[in-house]
């Protein structure tokens, strides 16, 4: 090992002695900065990753639409399932209704599905919390857990469904009565956007409620395992004439992902300030070290050390602080994130309001996803900033005249 690296390590982490105060403070600064960056970015990545997974799970991989109602969906489903990329496809209708239980109304999203085909795209049975999916018929609905909680309704209760079609008919002096429907089951996907406010009916019921005739709004597509959604969307688009468009779940939910990505970048720059503050601590400490070690610098020069080696010696002290601080910061981050549910439970047991907070963030638990690129960027930046922090004091050390260094008091 070159002498300047050896001395840098020994200055920073002396053998058989207590760690110097400067080392503890500087390493702590880097640890905190790295910890904050890894935890926050991994949680943001977790949100993005979880949204991707949940959206793919709950809505399928691709969607085929033309922005209007179309009736020849069976032909189009056949066209899609001929492709080796496609696992299955199912018709889908969607819209908004008013749902009333007792005197309490809400305005949920509504989807009309064919249960047997939908099962091949979305693991509906896994999401059923109460009741039975097979009980869904043209006079019943599935309601999300959020609606069940808000309206305090259970499986077997009845709800009134009002649709925009009623308003249209009213304009023609025709009155359509609300449709009384039984709750067949309560479902929960884990994705709050869906769980808060969604009702599912059969395709026929939805076509009646919205006056669609035999038409549907879209075809949901599930791809075979390992098929890239963007690639498949491009390939399958060739089978359809405009205005039909094959889009991925990513495009449909681009707003969420863009917000998360933007917030993640902002947090990255804000939290980087912690590492920069730590770098000032390293720089100040190294300046002090250079003053304290002035005679030692003179000694090394008298023994044949070059200016560049002296500079490297002090710069490497900043580097070793950066490496150790980053390593500890990473280890603490992984430990903290693996115990996140315990920590969150402990915090909410004191302050309360866990459910409301989690609902706000769309997920029932805090998602985490480690992105190797992010971890590499954090490590490289933290170590680089720590090393650069040592540069100015190092240059001062390297430029010291040996005679002045040896004479210093």
């Amino acid at each position: 090992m070159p002498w300047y690296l050896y001395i840098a390590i020994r200055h920073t982490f002396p053998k058989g002695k207590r760690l110097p105060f400067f080392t503890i403070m500087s390493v702590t600064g880097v640890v905190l900065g790295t910890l904050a960056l890894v935890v926050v970015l991994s949680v943001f990545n977790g949100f993005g990753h979880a949204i991707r997974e949940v959206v793919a799970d709950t809505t399928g991989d691709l969607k085929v639409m033309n922005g209007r109602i179309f009736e020849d969906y069976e032909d189009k489903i056949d066209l899609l399932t001929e492709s080796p990329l496609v696992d299955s496809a199912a018709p889908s209708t969607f819209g908004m209704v008013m749902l009333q239980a007792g005197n309490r109304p809400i305005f949920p999203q509504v989807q009309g599905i064919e249960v047997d085909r939908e099962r091949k795209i979305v693991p509906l049975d896994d999401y059923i919390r109460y009741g039975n999916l097979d009980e869904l018929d043209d006079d019943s609905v599935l309601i999300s857990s959020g609606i069940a909680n808000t309206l305090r309704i259970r499986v077997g209760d009845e709800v009134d469904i009002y649709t925009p079609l009623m308003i249209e008919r009213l304009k023609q002096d025709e009155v359509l009565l609300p449709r009384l429907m039984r709750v067949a089951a309560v479902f929960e996907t884990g994705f709050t956007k869906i769980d808060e406010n969604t009702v599912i009916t059969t395709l026929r019921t939805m076509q009646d409620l919205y006056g669609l005739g035999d038409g549907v709004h879209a075809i949901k597509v599930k791809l075979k395992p390992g098929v890239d959604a963007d690639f498949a969307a491009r390939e399958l688009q060739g089978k359809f004439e405009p205005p039909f468009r094959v889009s991925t779940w990513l495009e449909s939910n681009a707003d969420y992902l863009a917000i998360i990505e933007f917030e993640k970048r902002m947090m990255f720059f804000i939290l980087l300030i912690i590492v920069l503050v730590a770098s000032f601590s390293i720089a100040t400490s190294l300046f002090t070290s250079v003053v304290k070690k002035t005679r030692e610098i003179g000694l090394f020069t008298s023994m044949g050390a070059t200016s560049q080696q002296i500079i490297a010696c002090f710069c490497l002290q900043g580097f070793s602080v950066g490496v150790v601080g980053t390593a500890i910061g990473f280890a603490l981050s992984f430990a903290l994130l693996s115990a996140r549910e315990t920590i969150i439970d402990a915090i909410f047991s004191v302050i309360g309001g866990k459910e409301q907070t989690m609902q706000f963030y769309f997920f029932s638990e805090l998602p985490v996803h480690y992105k190797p690129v992010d971890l590499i960027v954090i490590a490289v930046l933290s170590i680089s900033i720590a090393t650069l922090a040592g540069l100015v004091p190092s240059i001062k050390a390297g430029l010291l005249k040996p005679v002045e260094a040896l004479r210093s008091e």
Partner: protein
Amino acid sequence: MSELAIAASGVAKSYVTGEATLEVLSSVELSVGRGEFVSIQGESGCGKTTLLNVLAGIESPDTGYVQWGGDRIESLGRNALAVKRGRYLGIVFQSYYLVPEIDSLQNVLMARRIVDGRVGKSQVDEAKAMLAKVGLGDRCHQMPNTLSGGERQRVAIARALITNPAVILADEPTGNLDESTGNRVMDQLRGLCREFGTSLVLVTHNPEHAALADRQLTLSQGAIH
């Protein structure tokens, strides 16, 4: 005289402090042969340490020049001079200047690390042998703060000799030691220099130590007498 080890010719050095100019060395002529032991005495503040610094190339003379083994050093750049110094000279300071964060063995090896770049098992064995020669074979892994003053100075002597330099410049190496410890250290320094054929330039206030030299010189009024 035998082959030249180190020499100063016409060396003058003065310092400007405010408006006053203090002339420390006016015209020093000094030649030390290979394996020769030369002692330099003089009153406090007469310029002995300055002369050693100039001989070591740590300080530049105002006029005159210094030769190491017949080569003039004034044309060498800072780094080239430092590298050559590491190979050609060993310096022993009054205050030992051991690195406090590393043990005796590593302090001795430090000189080899700087000169050779890296150290292997043979260099470690050499350093242990050198520590044994100065009577510290059993103190290899002692940290400097656990050693006595005499032991520290012996570590510093081992460090100065480990690179097998042509010349040792010793600046009052016994100045911080009691008489008997100082005598023991001086005996070891002289004995080892003789054993390795290393020239020794000793600056000292101690007339007994100065008397051990092959030549006794005195520095006064900026010149060697």
